[in-house]
């Protein structure tokens, strides 16, 4: 079930990322929704899920954009794995730790991705630190929102039912 959810989430993130880029007309979005989903999966299901989810997501991105297959996969895998590991070792339930975790995972992803491309001489990065910082902030913000949704939505019908019953009791008394 975790695998199905992870695959579905990654697929949805790929579609959303493409749609968002198309709708905003931007050739370069600051946020990487796919990486955000990978880190979220890692925090929810652990480092193995983060690793495999990252692999799947990174390879899909590599293949779809015509990049070197594996570089994005490696970067996302590492980011997902580290996020999952930190998520199991430390308490990452508050907003600020989560924000830092998403930002850190993005930094790891950026370092691996840009480092490999730079080492292989396949791409130039004019302002890598600025690019990674902007993306880290954007991803962290998106991650906080996504995590909030993930935590809130599943229990929403139950909470709604309890609240209605409570209201009914209050009315009768």
């Amino acid at each position: 079930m975790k695998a199905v959810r992870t695959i579905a989430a990654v697929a949805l993130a790929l579609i959303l990322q493409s749609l968002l880029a198309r709708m905003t007309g931007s050739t370069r979005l600051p946020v990487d929704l796919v990486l955000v989903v990978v880190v979220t999966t890692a925090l929810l299901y652990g480092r193995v899920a983060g690793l495999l989810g990252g692999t799947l997501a990174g390879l899909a991105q590599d293949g779809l954009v015509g990049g070197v297959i594996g570089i994005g996969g490696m970067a996302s895998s590492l980011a997902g794995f580290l996020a999952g590991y930190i998520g199991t070792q430390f308490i990452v339930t508050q907003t600020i730790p989560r924000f830092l975790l998403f930002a850190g995972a993005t930094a790891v992803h950026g370092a691996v991705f840009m480092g490999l491309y730079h080492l292989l001489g396949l791409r130039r990065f004019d302002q890598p630190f600025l690019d990674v910082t902007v993306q880290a902030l954007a991803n962290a913000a998106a991650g906080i929102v996504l995590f909030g949704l993930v935590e809130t939505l599943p229990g929403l019908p139950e909470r709604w039912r309890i609240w209605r019953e409570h209201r009914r009791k209050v009315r009768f008394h």
Partner: protein
Amino acid sequence: MALPDTRHHVRYLFVAVMVGHILLISTQVTSRSGVSLLQAALMSGLTEAQRAVWTVVGAGHAVWDNYVALRGAREDNQRLSREAADLRVQLQQERVASQAVERLRALMDMRARVTWTTTGADVIGGSVSPEFQSIVIDRGSDAGLRLDMPVITPAGLVGRVVWASAHAATVQLIVDKSAATAVIVGTSRAQGVVLGDREGMLRLDYLTAFAKVQRGDQVVTAGVDGIYQKGIVVGYVERVGGPVIVRPAVDFTTLESVLIVVAPAPQTAPARPPADAKARQ
């Protein structure tokens, strides 16, 4: 037998006689307008009466038109509002359709101009990774698309196909960091390579020391990189002095339709000798 009271009758008679006189006189005296006083008086009285009657009728009409006859106005208003909303939506749709027609007309004009075999496609998505500048189009290998096929618009060069499934393909934009295009600059015919730069611009590199490049020079493909045909507009020189920056001719943020060059220009066949000449030989 009591005598009838003739005092009232006298009054009536007096009034009647006076009126008779006036009438008599008026028939003989013309007014300043040239008609007799009687006629003038009659006309005046008549018109005043008509005016009075018309005022009353007009008021009645006004009451009827503005109140009684407006019983269905609310429904009419609602219906017309709905119709107006529908028409506004229809107008917007027509405008969108008109823009699409203009866009397609430009593409068709271009197809007619170029000698290459092309196929059209719509842009259906953007890049799935922020590190890459690419678009997704709705034509794939089923439509004959293969890797490295050039993608163009009437404005100029868009990029090349880097991935194709059966019904969709990814196009790497020329502004992508790993994209490189061999180009010729303006009238000086200096050759160089444009590379993806920051903020959606291109950087012109590998120019010789003697190359003369001026601001506003047109940059076209050189046709020596094995991917792009020669002469496709890439952009215009934006800045010289330091790195030469080229502004792409295509606005990638508003791309909706593109053409993919699926086959280069057909080779011109050598002139065939006339049949009778062949027979003579």
